[in-house]
């Protein structure tokens, strides 16, 4: 995995497999505190305490198609080698929250990557699931959620390729503005 956006795509796949209908993604870059945090919260079927403990074991997976589950172990390793940590909390029937922290300026921290593209791919590829995405940069935030987007789009599905391009452009413009405004 070359960047954190790819890890995000991977982790969200777990939420989708758990039957989530609402997935909240929060990316928080705080240069003043030298921190980068990514949080994924879902309302899927959740996990028992035992399952949460086994998450870091690459040979544990709930899937039947293969016998390994590398998503969380890889992300944990990436976090720990970048001066950070990964935390998962879950309740059966209530959902799961995964939080991963990085030291922002750590030399081994992978780049954030194209998060806007990852979010749009997830939104368009899973039209029955609602996504709420918040990007915060030094305390200033931009938020977008599919409930609002679906309201604006009416009958046009989020999977329409023209619409995908427009939403990605909107997210990228707002994220860039958050950064530009702070350096003016």
């Amino acid at each position: 995995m070359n960047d954190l956006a790819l890890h995000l795509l991977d982790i969200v796949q777990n939420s989708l497999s758990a039957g989530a209908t609402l997935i909240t993604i929060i990316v928080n870059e705080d240069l003043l505190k030298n921190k980068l945090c990514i949080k994924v919260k879902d309302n899927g079927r959740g996990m028992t305490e035992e399952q949460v403990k086994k998450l870091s074991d690459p040979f544990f997976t709930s899937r039947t198609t293969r016998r390994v589950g590398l998503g969380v172990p890889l992300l944990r390793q990436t976090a720990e080698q970048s001066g950070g940590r990964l935390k998962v909390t879950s309740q059966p029937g209530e959902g799961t929250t995964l939080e991963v922290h990085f030291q922002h300026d750590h030399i081994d921290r992978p780049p954030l990557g194209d998060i806007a593209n990852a979010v749009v791919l997830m939104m368009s590829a899973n039209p029955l699931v609602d996504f709420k995405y918040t990007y915060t940069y030094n305390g200033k935030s931009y938020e977008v959620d599919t409930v609002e987007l679906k309201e604006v789009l009416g009958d046009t599905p989020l999977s329409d390729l023209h619409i995908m391009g427009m939403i990605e452009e909107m997210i990228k413009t707002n994220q860039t503005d958050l950064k530009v405004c702070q350096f003016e």
Partner: protein
Amino acid sequence: MTKIKSLDELRKKKQQLEQNLEIREKSDHPESLVQIKVAMATCGIASGARTVMNALVEKIRNDKIPAVVTQTGCMGYCYAEPTVEVKKPGHDPVVFSYVDVKKAEEIIDKYIKNNELLDGILPANYQTI
């Protein structure tokens, strides 16, 4: 051209597109569309599934193909990732293996447009003549 920044601007742009008939009413007849699924579990993503998905989206948009691109989890073909399943209306689904940007374009040009099969179809005992 000004960039879209707000939901209001998004609404206006969408209306413009509708007037130009660039947006198809897909939601009414999803079965009439080519359905493309990109496997995006850890194995797929690590092998480049996102690049493939972006390439498919771009090509479909440019060539104005009535298709919808979605993602799926691991299909058990980790060794052959990125894998892409294509279901054309009235046809059985076909899974293509080891897909990169070039092969993604070939899938569209040869299979979707011309019904011509490519090598690398799963299960692996399939071969084009």
